[in-house]
């Protein structure tokens, strides 16, 4: 369960978020939409715990280990290979049989052939797919996805669709996007930021 | 310089520092006064057409 009450976030003089309140029950799917600069990324960083609200209260159920975050940045080491990145995060997230799970995810997201290549050699779309693998690696109870469809080609987007479909109702999901139609059917709750 | 002059210099430096600090606070006061004036202006404008 996640609940925000009068959330505000200010970076120096600029106020990124003002007076946002929402409530998302466990296993719900919250779709966050709004124009650029409306604070979608800020809100998701608050929920992920990467930033603290300047005002208002935010309660997020579950510990850090149960959270899968996908941001604008890949959060990956560009000079490590795909497998090495997943291996490192697998250790830090105490993932049992992390090699098998990494292999399965890479396979599912079509990255198995390039598993030993460095991320710096990846295209933007491939990096995004690997970042998705990283976010899903420890099978988190809460998924925070900030515009996950960016840079994904049709196949990648289809992969993500099926992944989201499988997880809806099973995991709590927070997803921000510019193209709400894509996941409109799955979403159980909506939040529009202005 | 004689010993006495050094003592005077030391106490004088302390006085100068405090006066400098007072001057800096004074400039801040002036700025605050201007800003509150601007805000009062906006508020009056807001009340006029409110």
């Amino acid at each position: 369960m996640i609940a925000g009450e009068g959330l505000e976030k200010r970076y120096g003089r600029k106020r990124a978020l003002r007076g946002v309140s929402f409530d998302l029950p466990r296993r719900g799917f919250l779709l966050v939409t709004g124009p650029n600069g409306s604070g979608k990324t800020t809100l998701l960083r608050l929920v992920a715990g990467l930033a603290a609200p300047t005002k208002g209260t935010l309660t997020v159920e579950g510990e850090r280990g149960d959270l899968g975050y996908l941001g604008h940045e890949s959060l990956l080491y560009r000079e490590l290979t795909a497998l090495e990145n997943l291996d490192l995060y697998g250790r830090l997230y105490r993932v049992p049989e992390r090699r098998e799970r990494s292999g399965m995810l890479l396979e599912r997201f079509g990255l198995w052939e390039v598993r030993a290549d460095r991320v710096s050699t990846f295209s933007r779309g491939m990096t995004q797919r690997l970042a998705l693998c990283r976010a899903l690696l420890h099978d988190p109870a809460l998924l925070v996805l900030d515009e996950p469809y960016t840079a994904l080609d049709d196949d990648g987007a289809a992969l993500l669709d099926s992944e989201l479909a499988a997880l809806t109702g099973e995991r709590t999901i927070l997803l921000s996007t510019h193209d709400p139609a894509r996941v409109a059917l799955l979403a159980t709750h909506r939040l529009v930021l202005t | 310089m004689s010993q006495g002059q050094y003592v005077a210099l030391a106490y004088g430096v302390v006085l100068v520092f405090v006066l400098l600090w007072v001057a800096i606070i004074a400039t801040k006061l002036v700025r605050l006064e201007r800003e509150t004036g601007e805000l009062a202006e906006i508020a009056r404008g807001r009340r006029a057409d409110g």
Partner: protein
Amino acid sequence: MSSRNNLPLLAFSTAGLLGAAVVLALLVAPEDADQGVSQRIFYFHVPIALTAYLCFGLGAWKALRLLWVGGERRDLESYTWIHQGTIFGALTLITGSIWAKASWGVWWSWGSNQLVLFLVLFLFYCAYFMLRFSIEEGARRERICAVYALFGVALIPVSFFAIRLASDFIHPTVFTREGPQMTGTMFGAFLVCWAAITLLAYVMYRIELVGKRTDANLRELREVLS
């Protein structure tokens, strides 16, 4: 803070106490036997140094509270205390070098451990402001500045030993003086000076804090109105 309205009273009593301190230090206190007139610089130099230590200590204490309990208020307080500490630290260096010139004929002497310590601390706390102004205002800056302030207060004793070790072996110096022996009235004058300077620092701190809080309030007002 405890009582907001006693600032004017505080300011007046500080002025009075300072006046008394100056009179005591320059006129009433007997002249030091061997050091002569220049010893009178001590009545202000040492209290200023002690006050600087106090300011750095309080700045670190507010920083610790900020990390423990949080609150933007404590960040402002820590910042203002450290700002006071730097002012009094600079004063310590200047009055100390004047005293060095008066008693040893040199504007700077590595032999005086306390002066060297203040030089190190001065460098350290100038970097505090450089750090503070190069980070975007917000929770992240508050925490980083607080951690740096904690390092500062840990640096004081460590540097004190380092400089003592340095002066013992690496820079054997000719003239180190531990400070004059004080008779009754001298010590009385010293205590009054110490109280006056400490109170002065506190009043300056309170005034600066009022300024900073007004700034913060104004910014919110401007947002609401604009």
